[in-house]
């Protein structure tokens, strides 16, 4: 059965994934909106950068983050100057790394949803006295509801499932950075297979359920009302 240490990793995983998802939605929504609407020549480049974590080995991303966030990195110097200290091997560092790593899973469904709304409802809103910001909240967000749901689920689930970035940036510190995927690794290393089974099986069931919901419930009824 699960030990209290296992439960602690589960709780930590849930906290990291929830916080990361909130930040991804906060930053990813304007980014996806910009990518969906802009005619700027920078669009291709930004799209590429956002999509990079999809193809990069997590260790590569983790490695560069470690350097950037570390004492001598640009961001590390900045956070030290702010008095926060450096981020690697902290809970905050783990959240930052997760946000970057899972961002494409939030930005891409949002971008698709925004594109499918098209120009017409926005123009109609403008002729009905709604400012662009007002239109975003009263027309775009409600009409992109299923896109937001997909983005939230995928972003959360993908953060739960990460391993390489966590290990590089967060390390393996109980109650601070030790998440489920790392704990499974620890169990296997210690030849505690039955413990590993419980956690691994739990993650498998979680991921399966989440994807099943995505591909059945959400896809068959895109206009939930």
């Amino acid at each position, binding site marked *: 059965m699960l030990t209290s240490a296992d439960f602690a990793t589960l709780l930590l995983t849930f906290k990291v994934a929830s916080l990361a998802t909130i930040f991804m939605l906060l930053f990813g929504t304007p980014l996806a909106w910009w990518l969906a609407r802009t005619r700027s020549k920078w669009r291709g480049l930004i799209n590429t950068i956002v999509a990079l974590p999809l193809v990069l080995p997590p260790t590569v991303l983790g490695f560069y983050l470690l350097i950037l966030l570390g004492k001598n990195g640009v961001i590390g110097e900045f956070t030290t100057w702010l008095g926060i200290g450096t981020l690697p091997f902290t809970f905050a560092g783990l959240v930052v790394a997760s946000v970057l790593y899972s961002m494409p899973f939030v930005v891409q469904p949002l971008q698709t949803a925004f594109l499918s709304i098209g120009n*017409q*409802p926005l*123009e*109609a*809103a*403008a*002729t*009905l*006295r*709604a*400012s*662009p910001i*007002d239109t975003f909240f*009263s*027309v775009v967000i*409600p*009409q992109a*509801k299923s896109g937001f749901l997909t983005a939230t689920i995928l972003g959360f689930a993908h953060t739960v499932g990460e391993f390489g970035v966590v290990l590089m940036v967060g390390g393996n510190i109980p109650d601070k950075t030790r998440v489920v995927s790392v704990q499974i690794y620890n169990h296997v290393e210690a030849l505690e297979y039955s413990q590993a089974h419980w956690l691994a099986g739990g993650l498998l069931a979680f991921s399966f359920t989440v994807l099943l919901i995505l591909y059945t419930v959400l896809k068959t009824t895109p*206009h939930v*009302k």
Partner: protein
Amino acid sequence: MKYQLSKWITARFKLNYGDFELSVNLRLPNSGITVLFGHSGSGKTTLLRCIAGLEQAQHGYLEINGSVWQDSDVGIFLPTHKRPLGYVFQESNLFSHLTVSENLNYGLKRIKASSDTPKFNHILDLLGIRHLLDRMPERLSGGEKQRVAIARALVLNPCCLLMDEPLASLDPKRKQEILPFLSRLNQELNIPVLYVTHSHQEVAQLADYLVVLEAGKVQASGLLAETLSRLDLPLSQDREATTVWNVTIVEHETEFHLTRVAFEGGSLSLPAIEAKIGTPLRVQIYARDVSIVLEVPRATSILNVLPATIMDIVDGESGQSIVRLKVGNQPLLAHITRKSAVILNLKIGKEVFVQIKGMSILN
């Protein structure tokens, strides 16, 4: 039609899209229904979008009822949501996530107005949409959607209503269902309308003032009757060429099933119309239904024979002559064969008689 001095739209736009250029300089009455007419690609929709601010012309000046909405020389461009206008799109463009009632209230909320007013209720009844309030847009027919879209624009009490081919996506039956609403709108609510269409029928039925656009330029702009009868425009050459007269009912001849209507400088007999004496009507006369005679025929089955003066005459396609006449104060077009024009020796200024074989009543 009388125009108030301050109710004018001044619109000057220059805009380039690849190989299309819109270049217009217009002064339009902001009262009654002004139709922007042209083929696809003539720039009529782009012009309407420029007026709404949905398109920003590189060079533009737009003034409505004395307030300037755009002046590119001094960098003024009022964004669409700050322009007090109404816009009806070709596709109704209702918000799919809102009910009909929420759609109608969307704009009202933003101008902090209530929907609990006699005017709001009047518009619901005028457009016959009261029973649809709780429906989602996807459960409406095309005609119903378009009526809701018109109401949604009207309830904001706009200074003018811009309509971009609002009937183009509807089948002929639905068109006939909405057309009467449109002419009533203008009369009952007194909101000026700018109406884009490529349909001759809608021009004849709705327009008070007509602007003809071709390849991004204004070909003609003027009162309907005058513009329709201008011989330098392709409109007068078309097989569907017509003149439209505004007339008033003066007498019912019940024994013959006829109604007599008067216009400036004469009167006509029409098949009986069930309406009170004094009712204004719009009568459309096709140029192909008008023939010319030199003397009053002593015996003819045609009732409407009127004295007329020939104002202009040009050669049309395939042996046709197009004649512009004046009957009383009304312009009239006639399509006759060139042979007849020669035999009758028709010349500008000649006094003749016209026989009108048929007319249609538009409202």
